[in-house]
């Protein structure tokens, strides 16, 4: 090509895009999209009342409840839980309550970007 064309462009690091915008599939979670800061109130579990019926696990759109195979207890994912409270509504054992996020010290990933 003629020298009037730029042969190699300078693309800044943060705008670099793979050929065809193909990205690797995530494993386990998508850390580029933490959604814990969507939450107003968090679900709080009473392990005494919990029967590990797995309703919270299966009904969570964000896959934020899992059964820990060692302790046989439900584990909640604070980083991604959006606070929709489907789990609270669907808990048959009344083991979940909600509490305002500002009443807790940590638990929310503070993000620079909103999305």
């Amino acid at each position, binding site marked *: *090509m*003629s020298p009037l*064309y730029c*042969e*190699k*462009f300078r*693309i800044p690091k943060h*705008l*670099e*895009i*793979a*050929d*065809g*915008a*193909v*990205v*690797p*599939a995530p494993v386990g979670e998508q850390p580029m999209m933490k959604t814990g800061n969507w939450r107003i109130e968090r679900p709080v579990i009473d392990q005494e009342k919990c029967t590990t019926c797995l309703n919270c696990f299966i009904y969570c759109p964000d896959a934020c409840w899992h059964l820990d195979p060692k302790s046989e207890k439900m584990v909640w994912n604070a980083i991604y839980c959006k606070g929709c409270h489907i789990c609270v509504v669907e808990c048959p054992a009344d083991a979940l309550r909600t509490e305002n996020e500002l009443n807790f010290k940590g638990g929310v990933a503070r993000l620079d970007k909103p999305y």
Partner: protein
Amino acid sequence: MPKETYMAGCAATANGAKLARVEVITSYPIRPYTGIMMELSRMVAAGELDAEFVHGEGEHAQVSVTQGASASGARAYTGSSGVGVAYAMEVYSPISGGRYPCQMAIADRAYDPPGDFGSEHTDVMSCSNQGWILGWAETPQESMDNCIIYYRIGEDAKVMLPQWQVQDGYFVSHIPNKVSIPDQEVIDEFLPPYNCPHALTPQNPTNHGPQIFPDQGPAIDLQRAQAFLNTPKVIEQAIADYNKAVGRDYTPWLEEYKTDGAEYVFFLMGGHCRTARFAVDHLRKKGAKVGMVKLRFVRPWPTTQVCEVLSKFKAVGVIESQTNYGGAMKGGELQHEVRSSLYDSPKQPACCSFMAGLGGEVISLEEFYNMAKILEKMAKAGKAEQYVYWVGFDNGI
């Protein structure tokens, strides 16, 4: 040993696809490209070609099936004509943006109206900026060879772009001509199996085509632009290799026919080049300083080559075979590209469009002679009297 035979463009192109060992073929009937798919479906049914033959439910689906197949790592092939080319429009950019190097054979055809199935370049030319490699064949032989060469160009790691391999409907696609079919082993060596570096597979899962933020938009467009800047070298290498392997003498960009000492030339692409050659022969015998320049690729457009070659002449007549209503030159698309290419040239030929071959109309030898008369006048005057001539309907032509 190459096999010498007589074939129409459709059959020859199907043989090209067979030699390229295409793996997924998608069809939908529309005249005049249909013959390609008829021949390929026969080959698949007869066991001559091991490929999946998918009957698309329309051109949009044809191109979509091709996208999925190409993304999965199969060499994918489809084709269309006329309004079918337009119907698939939505899917062209996702394919070039996804960098899936599939191929679409097109036997060009006029849009509606007029509702006929004659050749016209408007169908593909109106899609030409979707990031596909695009070029015309003059003969069934060239169409077959282009099929193979285009896959090699498109699948090059530096390119990874889809291709439109075009021949003129009916004139090339339906009129048999001499064709030499190379040996499969020769082609297998020229064209290695398709290897998609980012194929959709459960064994190495990737996610294709996510959304981007607005500030990433330029970067992704730039990526395709860069691929097109990489393409010319790959094209030149592929054509040189093909010429050597198969024994052809294709030039990569522009073929000059009898331009030695020529003062004015016809500039065109596709099947009408064949008639133009004879017109040039006859006119030369009468002492006219005429020649012909044939364009082999529209995308990427050979800017410097067009500039260098056409700067040698005093007048250039661009034979359009497609329309661009209300455009800068009020004629066809090619003159825009030609004039842009010549803009920085210190020696600029006079330039005009000849609107000819629209709706499948034949361009006769007489019409070429008439065009030559106008070009001769332009060469003498050093400028165009008129930017666009509608051949058969205009002053003195």
